């Protein structure tokens, strides 16, 4: 049996699972839209991983990243739970060792990561607004009645430039409608939207920073040829789209899990594939024991509390237990 390292990236828009073997080759890859029930998607994903690889591999390490990493980390018994910035950078450096700049555009997050000599030296992440992220495009594609997958290629068919105000998704929509009414074609509008997104990304994250090649573009949006072209136009240079650009976070956290297990020299804390048959439920309650009034999140497996989090003092987190709480809200 060979060792397998599982990387799970719980993003806001997609959930990605990969399995890497000892020589870092990918044995399993799953990219799935997050319909808002990450636990179910992860359970299904792991079940199909198990089905495919159980005869040849045993799980030697599990890493979880992404905005939903804490919860899934508890459920899986992850060996490492780490932020997606570090995970993304790790995966890219592995594939493109001389990378200096990573543009990562995901569903609701976008990131800029600056690297020097295989070390992250600076990063920026969008804060208050989803302009400059994939959901901006999703929204407009829906409005235009175009499949998001065709969006990028349509943009490349544009013959004229049209500028669409893209600071805010809502205003972009009104501007887009008026441009449509002027008679611009769909490809031109779509190209304008791609350029608006890239302009936003550069205004919000790059903010005049000096960037160096090589440039790598990854994240779910990297599949979009129109955005790639718009970035290349903006930086006047070539960008590389790595293999498996859509699951780089998962690859990165799998690599980090492998590293972690080598250093730790202990068996993986992975709870095993039996969890794919368990029923998980999340609920929360306001702890009223002190003035902090923390919202305590409780995770139950088959009706039994397995983890609690969110309390400042740690009295729930350190001792998760079944309790009867009034005023409970199911999440």
């Amino acid at each position, binding site marked *: 049996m060979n060792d397998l390292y599982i990387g799970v990236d719980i993003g806001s828009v997609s959930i990605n699972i990969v399995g890497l073997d000892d020589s870092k080759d990918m044995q399993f890859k799953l990219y799935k839209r997050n319909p808002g029930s990450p636990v179910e998607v992860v359970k299904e994903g792991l079940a199909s991983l198990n089905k495919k690889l159980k005869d040849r591999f045993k799980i030697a390490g599990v890493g979880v990243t992404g*905005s939903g990493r*804490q919860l899934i980390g508890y459920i899986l018994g992850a060996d490492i739970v*780490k*932020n*997606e*910035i*570090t995970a993304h950078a790790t995966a890219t450096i592995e594939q493109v060792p001389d990378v200096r700049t990573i543009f990562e555009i995901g569903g609701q997050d976008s990131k800029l990561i600056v690297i020097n*000599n295989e*070390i*992250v*030296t*600076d*990063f920026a*992440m969008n*804060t*208050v607004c989803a302009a400059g992220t994939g959901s901006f495009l999703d929204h407009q594609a829906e409005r235009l009645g175009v499949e998001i997958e065709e969006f990028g290629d349509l943009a490349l068919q544009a013959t004229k430039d049209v500028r669409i105000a893209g600071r805010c998704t809502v205003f972009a929509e009104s501007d887009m409608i008026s441009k449509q009414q002027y008679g611009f074609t769909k490809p031109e509008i779509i190209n304008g939207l791609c350029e608006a997104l890239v302009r936003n990304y550069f205004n919000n994250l790059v*903010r*005049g*920073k000096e960037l160096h090649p090589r440039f790598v573009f990854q994240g779910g949006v990297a599949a979009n040829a129109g955005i790639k072209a718009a970035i290349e136009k903006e930086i006047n240079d070539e960008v590389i789209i790595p293999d498996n650009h859509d699951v780089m976070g998962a690859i990165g956290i799998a690599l980090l899990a492998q590293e972690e297990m080598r250093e730790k020299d202990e068996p993986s804390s992975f709870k095993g594939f039996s969890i794919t048959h368990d029923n998980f439920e999340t609920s929360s309650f306001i702890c009223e024991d002190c*003035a*902090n*009034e923390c*919202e305590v999140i409780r995770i139950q497996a088959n009706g039994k509390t397995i983890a609690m989090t969110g309390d*400042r*003092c*740690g009295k729930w987190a350190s001792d998760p237990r079944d309790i009867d709480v009034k005023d409970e809200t199911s999440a």
Partner: protein
Amino acid sequence: MKVSFPYMDNPVLYYKLLDLLGHDIIIPPRPTQHTINLGVKYAPEFACFPLKVLMGTYLEVEKMGADTIVTSGGHGPCRAGYYGKLHQKILDNAGLDVDIIVFDAPKDWRPFLQNLKKIKLDNSWFRVMSVIRTAYTLAHSMDRIEKLIHKNRAHTLEPREVSDAWEEIQQKYMGIENRQDIAAVEKWARERLAGLEYNFPTPDQRIKIGIIGEIYVVMEGSTNNDIEEMLNELGCEVERSHYISEYIDSHLVPWKWKEYQHILDKADNYLEIMIGGHAKRSIGHIVDYKERGFDGVIHLKPFGCLPELVSQSLLDRVSEDLDIPILSLSIDEQMAKANMLTRVEAFLDLIKQKKEEEIA
């Protein structure tokens, strides 16, 4: 008269000042989500975040029975200088009978003394001066302990125990009557902290982070997801650009101002004039932290704060010139802990890698 005051970091100093004068006091609760929701509801949307949280606190203490709120004013041309007036107007409009007394930097002594008269009750002026001296000593004593905590909590196996000890220490400070008591509590506090278990790494292994930015979001843990505690738990020593004793010395005690001038001078290369708020001080502190061997700086900017927006725009240049990593975070009512942790964690990964590289 039932008196209350803003909650910032802890309520001890304001409480003691008013308590020693013999006031009937409503102690404001630590801001919670409820406080913030209240404030956001009543404050203008484009007001900066601290104004909203304070608004929430004032509404909460009003409900608890307070009819007078004592607060300190702004300094320089930042909007905080109008907070008192604006809060008063919002409370008036809401039909609430609360009087806000604002103590401003004593450039002009007359309003300062008039305000003092309002809260002096029947104490002699001699007694008032003595109480102020006691409060002043208290502020410095507590800050010495808090600074110690910001350092040592990074190196204990159970950060929570240190936080609990700090709560206990604050309770002791609540009971002081005079400066002898303060000295005794401080001595006790040091022993209490020394009695906990630590695992101090060698000095070159320690990671030191400076926190700069607007005073309220830097000092008030409930607004910044308790970032000091978060950093301490992740093994970093922390120092803030704001401690209340230093604020008092640098803003309210004219003969102490020059002791803090060097911080402002250090910002001269980047910001020649005072633009209000704490912008220039923030930049000066980055230079100071770099000179003192800190590994990184976290900048906290309330959403809607103009002075810190200016300092934020200078950060890239400062970071590059001084070769010190800086993470800037915008704080508002939407700032979820998970978002903050992601950025802080990645920032610390970056710092650790940089440090390893420099040692190697």
